[in-house]
């Protein structure tokens, strides 16, 4: 008990330290702008240039990273003026959050800051995409992530398995995921160590599942307990919170991460985001990516090995186009993936996870996954 108390104190301190650190970064940027104004120079701040042209694949680390190209936001530039104003508003508001130790969703900060300007035809923000984009600017300028600005997006994703978490922001509730019934635990949008602590896990690996239906199937089949697995149902493209959690299990607990998706370009991209990060959040790959993650399936090979040809679907024109683009992605430049993509394009078929139900409901849990995982039949 005594030991625990000490740990708790340290944790809280870290949390406060972080807030102070980020707040002082915002203060530094603001002071710089004020000093420019004093000197009657054009008020300017720097942020990273985003978009494809400034994203590179770091082969050594195996993650997507933002390049070094910076771009300036200049108040006196007609095209920047509004964004500049919006950024100062978001900076000021998050500064308050950090000082008061409050957190808000990105929708909440949007509503908190939205009001009409001047005669009333124009608003500080016309819609949430504007404030979202400014938040990203600020993340880059302050060299931090939105979670550390005390902001968060909408939560998505579910967690199940033998893992114990502690919610330090909420009475230090401590709970094991096997005791939460079939629903498991809803992954929060903020999964920062300062707030959620991974207390203990006996799992051997993390299984990331694309569809919620497959996640529920595996919970029902008691797959987690039987295989000492942590199940993360991401429900399509993984949200930030889920990605952060998977990353932490990978990094803090040193667990292998296996990704199980539909065998189509969308599924492959979900995998690649878990593994090396996304274009949009390339700057934060260090917080989010799991470069050693492995791909379980579905694969073209599976269709032949498990005689699933009858339950495949035809690839749509867009799918083929996307698959052809993926052939050129830096992180797919290895023989297994090139073969997989080329065969898919050639055969023109895609296969869903749930097509395995064609064999039987239990097939995925009792046969398919164990065979793939134990036999290490992965794509890199």
């Amino acid at each position, binding site marked *: 008990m005594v030991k625990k108390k000490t740990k708790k104190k340290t944790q809280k301190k870290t949390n406060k330290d972080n807030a102070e650190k980020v707040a002082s970064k915002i*203060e530094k940027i603001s002071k710089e702008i004020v000093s420019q104004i004093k000197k009657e120079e054009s008020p300017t701040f720097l942020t990273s240039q985003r978009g494809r042209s400034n994203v590179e694949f770091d082969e050594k680390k195996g993650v997507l990273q933002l390049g070094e190209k910076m771009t300036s936001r200049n*108040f006196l530039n007609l095209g920047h003026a509004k964004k*500049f*104003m919006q950024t100062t508003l978001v900076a000021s508001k998050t500064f308050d959050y950090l000082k008061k130790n409050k957190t808000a969703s990105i929708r909440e900060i949007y509503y908190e800051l939205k009001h009409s300007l001047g005669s009333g035809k124009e608003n500080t923000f016309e819609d949430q995409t504007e404030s979202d984009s400014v938040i990203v600017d600020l993340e880059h300028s302050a060299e931090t992530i939105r979670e550390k600005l005390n902001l968060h997006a909408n939560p998505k994703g579910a967690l199940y398995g033998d893992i114990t978490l502690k919610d330090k922001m909420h009475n230090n509730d401590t709970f094991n995921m096997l005791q939460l019934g079939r629903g498991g635990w809803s992954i929060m949008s903020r999964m920062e160590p300062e707030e959620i602590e991974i207390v203990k896990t006996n799992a051997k690996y993390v299984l990331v599942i694309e569809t919620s239906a497959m996640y529920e199937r595996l919970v029902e089949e008691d797959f987690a307990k039987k295989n000492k697995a942590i199940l993360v149902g991401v429900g399509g493209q993984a949200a930030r919170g889920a990605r952060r959690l998977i990353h932490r299990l990978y990094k803090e607990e040193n667990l292998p991460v296996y990704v199980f998706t539909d065998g189509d370009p969308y599924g492959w991209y979900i995998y690649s985001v878990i593994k090396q990060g996304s274009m949009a959040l390339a700057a934060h790959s260090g917080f989010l990516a799991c470069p050693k993650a492995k791909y379980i399936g579905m694969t073209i090979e599976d269709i032949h090995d498990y005689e699933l040809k009858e339950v495949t679907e035809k690839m749509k024109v867009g799918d083929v186009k996307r698959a052809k683009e993926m052939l050129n992605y830096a992180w797919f430049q290895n023989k297994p993936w090139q073969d997989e993509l080329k065969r898919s394009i050639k055969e023109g078929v895609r296969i869903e996870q749930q097509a395995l139900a064609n064999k039987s409901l239990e097939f995925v849990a009792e046969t398919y996954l164990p065979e793939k995982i134990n036999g290490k039949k992965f794509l890199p």
Partner: protein
Amino acid sequence: MAMEHIQAEELAKEFKEHSVAEFFKKNKQMLGLYGKIRTMTTIVHEYVTNSLDACEESNILPNIEVQIKELGNEYYEIIVTDNGPGLTEKTVGKAFGQLLAGTKFHRMIQMRGQQGIGASGGTMLSQMTTGKAVKVLTGTEKGKAISLEITIDPKKNVPKITNMQTVERKFQGTKVQAKFKDVIYRDSSTGPLEYLRRTAIANPHARIKFKGPKGQKALFKRTIKIIPKKAKEMKPHPHGVTVDELISMSKYTDAKKVASFLKNDFDRTGSTSIEKIEKKVKFDLNKDPKQLSWQESEEIIKAFKKIDFIAPNTDGLSPIGENRIKKSLNAIVAPEFVHTITRKPKVYAGGFPFQIEVGIAYGGNAGKKADGEGRSLEIMRFANRAPLLFDAGSGAISKAVQSVEWKRYGVRDLDSIPLTVFVNFISAHVPYMGAGKQAIADEDEIMEELRLSLMDCGRKTATYIKRKLREKERLMQQDMFYKYIPEIARALKNITGEKEEFLTTKLEKLVKEKLGLEKLQENLKQEETEPLENEVIEEVETSGEKEDKEKNTKENK
């Protein structure tokens, strides 16, 4: 000190007699005396033109008052008073009681009064419609003023003067009071008021006061006090003369021989050309010009055509001047922007010198009221400073305005733009179309000059419109920046503790500098207030003082 006034008595020498009273009765159309509204405008035109011409010939800055009273249904009295040289007992009869008494029809000189038939036409029309005499009060610089009533003997075309009285008070100028029936007054674009407004624009040296039948009042102030340079009488160029004109001229010449008549009374005819003509005609050039037959005249004209003469002398033309048009458009039209051009004299049809002046007024009160809201294109046409109000759609000026691609100059729709186009056509020989003398023929050279000057005006207007739009845009941008500044100041204050007011002031200053607004606005203001000419704008009532000042300004220049 004073410039010498040319005495009225001297002017009188030039009057010559004709018996055309009967002709008048039958040809009212040709004289512009048809249509109830048009007739009234024409009468006003005749009186006002006489006044302006008389004043200018005597170096007097014209003060003209026009009053119209409604006496009954389609029954009006027109009273025109000027401060001109005045008439004497000898000359007043010819001026008001004898048709075609002047020599206007035979002189190659640029003048306003090429339309109509003069003040006597008014007398004739008055007695024909009301049976009443015209009342005249007139006085010269010397002697006493006289008042009288006058009518015309329609058969003999001679004045009948009654009630002649000497007036005891001092009066210089002429006041005519005439009554007319079958005429109508309207405040329309062809009515007397619009006529006077345009006359004032083209005659910035004149002060014109108007009082209408419904109590309407208008005062068009003098914007410059320099009397236009007198148009010189020009000899006709041999290439600009018809057989008929040659014969008319031969009747009035002082020359005793055809050879000297051709040499003296025409422009650019020297001894060499006379020798050439001699070889080309079948009769003896020593003949008395008064005896020239039609056929002989034809021979001369044919000979003229075969000879290369130097292009006509253009010295005799008297334009208003760019700056003066600019000034009066600014004063009377009150637009936002004015551009004017006086082109160099040119020659049309080989023998007729002419000159074009174009002004364009944009924004403000320019243009005429459109049917719906807003304003639309207004074309003001003038021939030798006299407004052409009628037959608006036809003639070279209207055609030239229509032919310009206004779209190029940012003018999309002529029906919805505050734009006034002013065109003054100057020539001793205005090529009118039709007897009404309200439209100018579209001779190639005239069209070319019109188009060139209109396009130049168009370009200048386009520049102005663009600059104005840019200015508007800048102000909009400033508004945008200014809306953001308080937000930024508040946010930065919250984070850094810096004073909001300080940040706001500094940021506003930065924005202003960035947009260069201060500089731009200054430029605009300067342009607006920059005096166009050093001449006086105020009216001057005493003639002595007026001339002193005039002299000074001339010397200063």
